[in-house]
């Protein structure tokens, strides 16, 4: 408790506060621009964090993360285009409200609901992380390997799109992470005689390529700016800030749903928003208003999507298993500073552990002020044409990769992974399992080899312990639920009358 209070006190000092404000402002602006999002900016900023204090680097990145998720609200309400996937449901009802002339009300509800969702998930993050980390520190090597494997499989089943493609994406990430020198056996793997491949693929170059370059290449399909349609004034926004509390039950329920969804690896803020929205619609007395400018819908969507961020931070700091693509970037920033996230983080680096928790709370509060004050300016950012943005960001990605190791050759890795990301986008392969697989593969391999050595190859002895057995049970339940769900879905589709 003292550690938490100390880190909260540290967060209100000028330097961390400044980094937090910079991060949140940048996140809000980038989050508002459709197609960009906080993840891309985090990848772009990652090389710069190398020279920073490790905690300040986390403050900056979490600021961008939280700001990016909430920032999507502005464009979703004002122009009906979600700045981030997390704002998809917000765009439906938020923009409908704006079109009816209630843009300020929609923004106020979204801003306050986001803060509320963030605070609820922070309470769970603060309460659950340390006990979970202590429990996890008692796990054996094989248990840890099972957790990583389970996390990757859960991502595939719970994420959007094809399960098969998600699993392939994760396996591809794992395979590419194994290129290079194996320190245990002093052997090169998949280097094809190229000496520079012995170092493997540089993590930063891979992340910048997979996130930022890929996003820019995808966005380069058209060069048009986003068109403005409506606006909101500051006094109106301030006047309506208390409105979400008229739906208090909905706020609490959606925030809890978002947090629980966030706890599951790889699901993401968009699913948190969709599930919270669906629950709110199912329980509402005014279901017919959903989709046509419903306040309840907006409350559910915004509190749900923001709460997933706090939930996703729990497995990242307590177990070292990233819950989302953005968490991978937070982990990468820690690894750059020689800090391994996971069960030992709370005992070895309590300042970082509690610093991350405190930053999340402060970033949410800062986001409230930034959102209220920045809405009118965000509108002008939305009009930046892509023909300026795309080449500029691609050039900055290149400079960022070069500056990390002062090595221009890394730009080839960035380019290759950017193109790979584009191919994955064309063929509808999700990116999150790929990057999570890439970052977790070395750790998973090390744990598996240690466990096999300890058990002297007796796999039955390894499997017949509580954690692997529980994991197998979870997998069977998930597999069956998924099969039944799909069959039910197909039956429902099949029974629908055909249109003439």
């Amino acid at each position: 408790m003292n550690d938490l209070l100390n880190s909260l006190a540290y967060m209100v000092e000028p330097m961390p506060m400044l980094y937090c404000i910079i991060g949140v402002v940048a996140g809000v602006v980038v989050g508002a621009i459709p197609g960009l999002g906080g993840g891309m900016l985090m990848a772009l900023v990652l090389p710069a964090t190398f020279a920073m204090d490790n905690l300040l680097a986390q403050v900056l990145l979490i600021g961008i993360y939280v700001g990016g998720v909430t920032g999507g609200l502005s464009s979703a309400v004002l122009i009906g285009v979600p700045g981030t996937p997390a704002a998809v449901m917000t765009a439906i009802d938020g923009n409908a409200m704006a079109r009816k002339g209630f843009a300020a009300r929609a923004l106020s509800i979204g801003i306050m609901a986001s803060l509320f969702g963030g605070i609820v998930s922070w309470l769970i993050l603060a309460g659950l992380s340390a006990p979970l980390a202590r429990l996890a520190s008692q796990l054996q090597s094989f248990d840890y390997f099972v957790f990583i494997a389970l996390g990757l499989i859960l991502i595939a089943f719970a994420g959007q799109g094809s399960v098969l493609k998600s699993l392939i994406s994760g396996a591809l990430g794992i395979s590419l992470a194994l290129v290079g020198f194996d320190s245990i056996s002093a052997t090169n793997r998949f280097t094809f005689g190229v000496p520079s491949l012995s170092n493997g693929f540089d993590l930063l170059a891979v992340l910048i390529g997979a996130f930022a370059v890929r996003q820019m290449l995808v966005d380069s399909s058209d060069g048009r700016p986003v068109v403005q349609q409506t606006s909101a004034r500051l006094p109106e926004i301030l006047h309506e800030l208390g409105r979400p509390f008229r739906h208090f039950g909905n706020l609490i329920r959606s925030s809890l749903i978002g947090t629980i969804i966030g706890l599951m690896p790889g699901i993401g803020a968009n699913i948190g928003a969709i599930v919270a929205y669906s629950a709110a619609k199912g329980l509402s007395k005014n279901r017919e208003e959903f989709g046509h400018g419903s306040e309840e819908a907006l409350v559910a969507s915004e509190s749900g999507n923001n709460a997933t961020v706090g939930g996703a931070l729990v497995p990242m700091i307590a177990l070292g298993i990233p819950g989302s693509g953005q968490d991978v970037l937070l982990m990468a920033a820690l690894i750059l500073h020689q800090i391994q996230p996971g069960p030992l983080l709370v005992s070895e680096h309590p300042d970082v552990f509690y610093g991350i928790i405190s930053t999340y709370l402060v970033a949410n509060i800062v986001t409230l002020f930034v959102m209220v004050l920045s809405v009118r300016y965000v509108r002008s950012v939305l009009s930046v044409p892509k023909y300026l943005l795309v080449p500029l960001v691609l050039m900055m990605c290149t400079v960022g990769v070069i500056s990390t190791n002062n090595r221009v050759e890394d730009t080839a890795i960035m380019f290759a992974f950017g193109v790979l990301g584009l191919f994955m986008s064309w063929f509808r392969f999700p990116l999150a399992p790929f990057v999570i697989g890439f970052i977790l593969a070395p750790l998973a391999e090390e744990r598996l080899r240690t466990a096999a050595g300890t058990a002297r190859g007796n796999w039955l002895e390894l499997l017949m312990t509580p954690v692997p057995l529980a994991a197998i049970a979870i997998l069977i339940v998930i597999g069956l639920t998924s099969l039944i769900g799909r069959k039910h879905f197909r039956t429902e589709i099949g029974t629908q009358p055909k249109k003439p």
Partner: protein
Amino acid sequence: MRDIFSGALLTVFSVLMYWRATLIENPGYDLLGPGFFPKLAIAMMGVLSAMLLCVAVFRRFQNTEAAGDVKQLNRLLAPDFRRQSLIVLLLGMYVFVLISGLANFEVASVLFMLTGGAVLAPLRVKSLIILGVTAVLAVAAISYTFRSILFVNLP
């Protein structure tokens, strides 16, 4: 069609990578050896890719009537591949020029921004002027910041 192509490509890739993984020698420092985990991951990828290919082929033969609708839908969803391909090509050339040292960072970056922007910009004089000014100013600012303040060894 996309799934058939990606499934086939990944299956072939997995087979080749698995073959390479079998060539990794085990010096015997640990029980599993350096080849075990790559073989496990690649075998998993290969099996899943083959499954994706089979499912896609099966669906294609089963739903021949719907193939036209799927094609139409894919066409609607498909981004502008030509523009994207040009940007990929330009980025590849930019990276190649930087690595090979054919031009320094400033020249290569201004050219990349101008050509990349021109591919995406509407063909209007005003847009091209804005693009030119932005390219020169942005490259100058980035070059000064990284070379003089952050002491990064830009090519």
